[in-house]
Each structure stands twice: as C-alpha cells, then as structure tokens.
C-alpha cells in the first residue's frame, strides 16, 4: 500500500509541508492551510481505500511550547484525525495558522460532523472557520469573554473573579439562553400552520442529564431538533495542563462517569506510549477485567433507564440491584464504587486482594440467569418492541459520515470493535464475539448492548481462570519511585524518591494518541508532552459528542415519544459530551 504522504505529494505538489514523527503508530502530515479542504475531499472521496470518518477535529495553542523540532511555525495548529475502515488506520493532518486571530475554511460541506467540532475549536481557541453555517459558542455560555483553551486564559476558578449571581446577571443569562428560531434559520410557519418550539431541558428527566433540546414541532411531528450542550463543561482538557501526569488520573474517571476505571485506560496507554513504558501481563489482564466489569455496570444503568424511558418501571430497580453486585466487586478490589481511580502509569495501584475471585465467580454464576429474565421482561415485551423497532433508523454509511462508533455503529451491521480491530492491552489474547445488528434502529442498538454484557462476562471469566502471575506494575523509574527503605542509604535515591512523589515523573516530549472501545463508543486521549511534569495539551475525543450531534438527523419525522426512545438508545452521558 502506498504511503499517504507520497500519494499527496505527487497528487498535490507543494501542499505537504512536512511529515512529523509521533510516538503513536499514526501518520502525521503538516498541510498548507490553503489546500486542506481539497486534500480532505480527496482523502474522503477519491482515494483508493478512503478515509471516510472524521474521527476528531481539534486545535493546539502553540504559543508556550518549547519542543517543536522540525515542525513548521504555528500559533494555532488545527488537527484533523481521520479513520479509514478499509485500511484499518488513522491519519492525522495538521494545519499551521500563524495569525493571532486565525481563520481557516470550514469543512462542514465535506463532513456534516465537522459542525460541532469546529464550533468547539472556535469557542475554546478563538479560531474562525469561514463558511461555517452557525459559528457560535457551543460549550461556554454566550456571555463568556475569552477562549478558555488559549494558554493566556486562566485555568482555575480561584484565579478569576469569584462567581456571583445577582438579580440582573440572572436576567441577562436567562435572556441569552432564550431560543430564537431566526438565529438557526428555522421557520415559524409551515404553510398556514404555526410551528411549535418545545424546549426540552436542560432540566428534564428524559434527557438523562443536563442536555437541552429545542424541538420544532408540526403538531406531533418533529420538524427539527436543535441540541444545546455545554451545561456540563468541566474543563477536563484544561485540567490536564495543570495536573501532574499521575494526578490527572482521577479526572479521567469522571469524563464518562459510568465507565469508571475504563476511562483511565486510554489516558494511561497514551502516557505509556509517550514514555515507552512496558506494562506487565498481570496488570494488563487486571485492567481488562475491571474495564469489562464497568462495561457491564454501565450497560446495566442504560438497560434500566432505557426501559424506564419507554414507560417500564420495574427493570430499573432490578438492573440497579445487579449493578450493586458489580460495584461491590469493584469496591472490594479497588476500594471505591464509581470513580476508583485505580489504574496507574505502568500498571495498577495495588495487587488484587486475597479472595478477589470469590465475588467474581459468584457473579458469573448469577448474572446469565438475570440477563435471560431481562430478555423476557424487556426485549421480548411487545410494547417495548413497538416503541423501538423501526425507530431512529440509520445506515452504516450515515453512521460513518457522522462519526458514530461503538454499539451505535455495530447495530447497523458493521462488525467494528477496536478491541478486535486494533487490539490494545492484550485483548487479542481473549476469545469473544462482536455482536452486531442489521437494521440500525433503537431495538438493534439495545440488542447489541445486551449481547455485549454476555461477551463481557465471558471475557471476565477468562480473566478469572487465566490471571497471569507476576508484577502488577512496571519497574520503569517514571512509574514507580525507588523503594522507601533505600532512600535512607544514599542521597541520589532520596532525591529521586522526593522528585517522583512531589513533582511526579517528567514524560519525554512527544505526541501520542490512544483510543479504546469504551462503553459508549471510541474514547481516545491525544496527549502532547513538552518535556514537563504536566501535559502541554490533553485532547479527549469522546464518543457521546458526535452521537448527540447526530440525534437531530435521525429524529426528524418522528414524534416526541420516539425522540425519547432515540435518546435512550443513543446511550450518552453528558460529561462525555461536554467534558
């Protein structure tokens, strides 16, 4: 297969500025800003084995960066990450922008999914995208001043004026949130009939968190949906620029708060790539086992709440009880329930406790029967079927176009699981199936998740029976401080111990991305180290962000109750959307 860099230089001479070496296995090309749209169009449309998915679009503020050897001059760098299913490969394109108030052409005409990503870059970095249909803030309030991810913007709330909410400010904020259909180019009338705009959220039991949807209705039929996000923006990316490499781990737990330690995994694997840290086999298997336990726990929350969205009261009580059983195992091993913060750079926090097998063995014996019971209760229920079959249908092509990954993609019939296609942390050693659907409707998405719980249980069973012996963390000096007892013998060890526990490790300069098949889809961390104790840029690519962006496209023509089914079957978490 010819290398993409070579293809582009022969096809578009003078557009590829340079090729950058990164610590991950993806090719990184610097492209001239004037040609980026043409090159992306070529890669998507004309290339043999094309890059069909816009996997991520983000930016880097380069103004404070020291280690940029071999990279072209840039003030803001726009990063496009593409995924080719045919090639099973990622491609990263970088565009340097040198102006202080930079502009670049929008690619929304090429990928509709670019819409929100470009708005995010505009909001957080202040880069203007020309010809973008609605270049408005997306995560921060309309009234916000400044662009938070610029290096000159303060990170801490305590560095800024203390927050107050007097009467007049309350009025101004409420007014700025008022939905104006004209701003979105939405008609208030269709023929002689007046259209209704229904505001759903940010406080609504059906939205599973603080998501706001403005629904344009013609009678009962949905004409359009405009999501408003950012109510849950916790600044997780900026946080990475001030927490040490180790002390950022608890923040990853809270990015997709139902996934628990599974969120640690992509972050840590990216750090390990940057620093060339080898993880011992036992640690890898422990990581897989806990990640799969959290997949079950997350899917159980989804199962119960999805059934409840469709009017069933009982399942949520049953599935939450089973979730308790999973969390009891997690708490016995990690010491906490939802956010154990238990993985570490190069391994896990401590070895498995004595007697860890008992809880897991009991659960493996208990859970399949319950799943069967839920099949009878939910999946075979005629009302449930009537509410989900044929609702919210999309094809594999549409899913790829909009950046959909995870169960939502597999429900369309494409067997694509990163655990199989690009195995990480030793998943290639495990035997499991990748469940798929055929129709890409709400019912198939549910079916895929239910089957995934069985497969996760099968993986946990293999972990239980084949847990390797050995170390639970790497002995790389970047991961573990020297043994305390030895620090009292010579000054060198004492200094190293002190620095490792106080400042934390210094990760060598470089860039790396790592993604995992998380509960909701593909979750990835793109880390840039500038040779410091903190990351220079932490980009979190979460699955829920493109998934929510896709909701309007699959809801048009349905009714409000169908919208609830579509939202439920999308399975998102607001912290995963807004980070």
């Amino acid at each position, binding site marked *: 297969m010819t290398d993409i860099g070579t293809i582009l230089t022969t096809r578009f001479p003078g557009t590829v500025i340079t090729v950058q070496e990164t610590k991950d296995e993806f090719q990184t090309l610097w492209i001239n800003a004037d040609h980026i749209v043409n090159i992306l169009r070529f890669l998507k449309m004309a290339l043999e084995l094309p890059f069909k998915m816009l996997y991520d679009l983000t930016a880097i503020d380069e103004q404070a960066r020291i280690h940029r050897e071999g990279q072209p001059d840039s003030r803001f760098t726009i990063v496009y990450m593409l995924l080719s299913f045919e090639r099973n490969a990622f491609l990263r394109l970088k565009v340097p922008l040198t102006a202080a108030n930079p502009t670049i052409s929008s690619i929304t005409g090429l990928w509709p999914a670019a819409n929100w990503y470009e708005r995010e870059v505009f909001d957080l970095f202040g880069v203007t995208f020309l010809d973008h249909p609605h270049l408005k803030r997306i995560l921060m309030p309309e009234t916000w001043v400044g662009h938070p991810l610029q290096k000159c913007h303060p990170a801490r709330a305590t560095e800024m004026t203390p927050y107050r909410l007097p009467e007049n400010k309350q009025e101004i904020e409420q007014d700025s949130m008022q939905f104006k259909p004209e701003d979105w180019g939405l008609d208030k009338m269709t023929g002689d009939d007046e259209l209704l705009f229904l505001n759903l959220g940010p406080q609504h039991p059906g939205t599973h968190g603080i998501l706001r949807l403005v629904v344009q209705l013609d009678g009962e039929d949905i004409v359009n949906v405009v999501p408003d996000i950012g109510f849950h923006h916790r600044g997780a990316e900026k946080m990475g620029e001030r927490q040490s490499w180790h002390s950022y781990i608890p923040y990853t737990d809270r990015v997709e708060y139902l996934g628990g330690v599974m969120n640690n995994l992509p972050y840590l694997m990216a750090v390990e790539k940057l620093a060339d840290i080898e993880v011992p086999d036992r640690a890898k298997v422990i990581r897989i086992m806990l990640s799969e336990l959290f997949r079950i726990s997350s899917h159980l929350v989804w199962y119960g709440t999805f059934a409840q969205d469709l009017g069933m009261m009982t399942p949520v009580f049953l599935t939450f009880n089973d979730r308790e059983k999973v969390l009891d195992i997690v708490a016995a091993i990690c010491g906490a329930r*939802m956010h154990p913060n238990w993985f570490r750079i190069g391994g896990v926090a401590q070895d498995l406790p004595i007697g860890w097998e008992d809880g897991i063995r009991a659960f493996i014996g208990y859970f399949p029967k319950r799943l069967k019971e839920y099949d009878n209760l939910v999946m075979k229920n005629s009302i449930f079927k009537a509410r989900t079959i044929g609702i919210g249908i999309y094809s594999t092509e549409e899913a790829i176009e909009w950046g959909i990954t995870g169960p939502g993609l597999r429900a369309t019939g494409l067997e694509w699981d990163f655990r199989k296609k690009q195995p990480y942390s030793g998943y290639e050693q495990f035997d499991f199936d990748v469940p798929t659907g055929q129709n890409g409707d709400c019912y198939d998405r549910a079916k895929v998740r239910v089957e995934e719980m069985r497969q996760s249980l099968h993986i946990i069973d293999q972990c239980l029976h084949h847990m390797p012996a050995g170390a639970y963390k790497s002995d790389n000096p970047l991961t573990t401080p020297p043994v305390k007892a030895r620090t009292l013998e010579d000054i060198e060890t004492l200094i190293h111990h002190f620095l490792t526990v106080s400042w934390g490790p210094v990760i060598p300069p470089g860039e790396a991305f790592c993604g995992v098949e998380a509960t909701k889809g593909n979750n990835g961390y793109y880390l840039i180290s500038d040779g410091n104790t903190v990351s220079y840029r932490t980009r979190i690519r979460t699955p829920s962000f493109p998934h929510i962006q896709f909701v309007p496209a699959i809801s048009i023509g349905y009714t409000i109750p169908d919208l609830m089914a579509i939202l439920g079957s999308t399975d998102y978490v607001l912290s995963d959307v807004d980070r």
Partner: protein
Amino acid sequence: MKWWTSKVNDPTGSIAGNSSFEETFQKSIILTNMESMVAWGRKNSIWPFNFGLSCCYVEMATSITSKYDSARFGAEVIRGSPREADMMIIAGTVFIKMAPVIKRLYEQMMAPRWVISMGSCANSGGMYDIYSVVQGVDKFMPVDVYVPGCPPRPDAFLEGILLLREQVGKEKRPLNWVIGPQGIIKPQGPSMKETKRSERMKMTEISEPDRV
C-alpha cells in the same frame, strides 16, 4: 408514647399491654400544637425534585432503588416539576452555564423548600477548581445539608436525608401571625465532624487493603 404491633390474623383488640385507663388514654390522644404537628408531617414526607447535574445523580438515583430504598424515610415521591417538590438535591457539579438555570428552578419551588448539597463539587467546587465551575452552590443559593464524598455513597446520601428530616422537624415556621419576631427559625445544623469525632477516634484497627 408506647407502641405495639399485632399479627395479621390476630383478633382485633387483642393487643399486648395492661389495658389500664392511662394506657388507653396515651394510645388514643396526642397532645401537641398545630405547628409541631405540621412539622412532623413535613419531615416524614419530603418530596424530592428529580434534578441531577452529574455523577452524584447516579448515586442519588441508586438510593431510591431497592437496596437503599429512600422510601423508608418518606422521601421516595420524586417529582419532575419543581413546583410540586419540597427538596432540591444539588447532585453534581455546579457549572457556570447551568447556575442561572439552577437558581431559576430553585425559585420555582414553593416554600417550605430545602436544599441538600450532594458531593464535593456542589459543596465547594471539589476537585474542579476550573474556569467553568462555580466553587460551591452556596455562592448563590442557601443550603441546608452538605453531604461530603465524590460521589457520596447512597448510604451517605440517605444520612443527609435523615439529617434534613431532623432539621425540618425542629424548624419553627409560624402558621399565623405571632408575637415577637416573625419568620422562620431554622435550627443550627450540627457539625457531624464534631459529633462523630470521639467515635472515630476509637477506630484503631483498620482492615487491610490486601484482603477482600
């Protein structure tokens, strides 16, 4: 007051006790004032508002399910509208974009209304000292009970409800014009850190982490 319980099939009237005049009197008559009785009613049926912000909301929802069962404390009637609820639980991070909405929802609740701040974020911003997060919900609205934790376990949240119940029961909320200062007199909330200190100091043997 003394209480007995009877079995399902017991004939009516056959109950334990000595059937004295005094006892019968005690069982059928309650002497109280109207204000205390209303407070007793309020504390035993607090209706929470179905409102959640982030991670803590999942643990709050868990406290309603059967293992924890908040119905035991009369707080299971979850209302989707603030106008029907008495108690708002700030379960999660208070975001700057969300703060005006939270305040509007609080204002929509009818008095008497109470607020539980659940989790470190709502208490003080917690680990999110970041540009988009308000450092504690008490920066712009009153709070009755603070529950620590990140997130608090459902049991910890239930303890918060119990503490609030106690507060509600002791609250002086005149039903009519009274002599002296008007308005609501809320009892001073106890510091659980102080209350539990001596008990915690007794804990000297802590189970090892390398054993389940």
